[in-house]
C-alpha cells in the first residue's frame, strides 16, 4: 500500500491511498485502501488519514474515521487518537500495520505496531525526513 496525507497553506486536508493487498489474495478481495473511513479519510475539522496493514481489521474497526471520531467526540489530540487506534484497537485484534495522519493545525502522526513502515514527512520549513524502521 502507498498513501499520502496533507494540510495545505489554506488549512485544507486531504488523504489518498492506493493499491493495498495481500500476497496471493483472493481474486476480487478488496481491503481497506479504497474504503472511505477504513483506510482513507479526510475532514478539515479533525484530520486526514491513510492506512497500511491488515486490511480486514482496519475495515472492522473503521480505523481512519475512528481517529477523527475520537478527536471530535472525546477531544483527543491527533497523536492520542491515532496511537489509541493503532496500538490498542488494531494491535489487540490482529491488526498489524500503521497509518499516517495530519490534523487541522498541520501536526503529523505516523504510528505503526509492526516492525517497520516506509514513511516520510515534510513541512513548510522544507525539512524532509524519511524512515523505514
Amino acid at each position, binding site marked *: 500500500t502507498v498513501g499520502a496525507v496533507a494540510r495545505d497553506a489554506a488549512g*485544507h486536508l486531504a488523504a489518498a491511498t492506493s493499491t*493495498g493487498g495481500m500476497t496471493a489474495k483472493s*481474486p476480487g478481495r478488496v481491503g481497506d485502501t479504497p474504503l*472511505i473511513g477504513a483506510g482513507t479519510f479526510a475532514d478539515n475539522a479533525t484530520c486526514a488519514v491513510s492506512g497500511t496493514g491488515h486490511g480486514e481489521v482496519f475495515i472492522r474497526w473503521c480505523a481512519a474515521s475512528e481517529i477523527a471520531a475520537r478527536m471530535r467526540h472525546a477531544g483527543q489530540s491527533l497523536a492520542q487518537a491515532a496511537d489509541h487506534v493503532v496500538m490498542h484497537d488494531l494491535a489487540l485484534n490482529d491488526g498489524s500495520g500503521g497509518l499516517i495522519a495530519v490534523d487541522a493545525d498541520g501536526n503529523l502522526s*505516523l504510528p505503526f505496531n509492526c516492525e517497520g513502515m516506509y514513511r516520510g514527512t515534510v513541512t513548510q520549513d522544507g525539512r*524532509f525526513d524519511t524512515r523505514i524502521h
Partner: protein
Amino acid sequence: MTKFSLAVHGGAGTIRKSSLTPALEAEYHAALRRALEAGHDVLAGHGTAIDAVTAAVCALEDEPLFNAGRGAVFTSEGKQEMDAAIMDGTTRAAGAVGGIFGPRNPIRAARAVMDATDHVMLIGPNALNVARDAGLPFEDTDYFFTQARWDALQSTLAMRAEGKEDDDPARRHG
C-alpha cells in the same frame, strides 16, 4: 504553527534488516524523498492538499520498490488488481475504485470518480470507462510486473500447497 505539511507511506509490515542492504535502503529513502518532493512542490506553489496527495501517491505508484506500485500485488490466479481512494477534507468529496486493472496511476482513476461522477466508488468496466474518459494513461501487464512480487506469489502458493500457515505480516500486507 505549521502552515503546510505532508506525510507519505510506502507500506508497513515485516521489514527485515538482514535483507535490506545499505544500497537498497538508500533506494527506499530516495523513493520516499521523491514522493515527498512531488507533494511538497504542489504545496509550496500554493496548491491544494488534494493535488498534493495526488502528486505524492502518483510518485509512489510509479516506484517499483513499493508493493502497490508497478509491482502491484498478485491475486492467487496470478493476475493484478488495483484499488485506490482519495478524499477532500474540505467538502468530504471522495472517489474510489476497486478491483480494476489498467490505469498507470490508480489514484488518478479514483480522483476521476470524485471529480467527474456523483458516486464515491466504482468497480468493474465503468470504473475503467471513467478513467478513459478522463484521458488517463493505461499500461499492460508487463509494466506492472516486478520479479520480487512474482517470486513472493510463487512462494506463498507453494506454502499453501504444503499446508503451511501463512501469517507473516509481510504477506498479509502485500
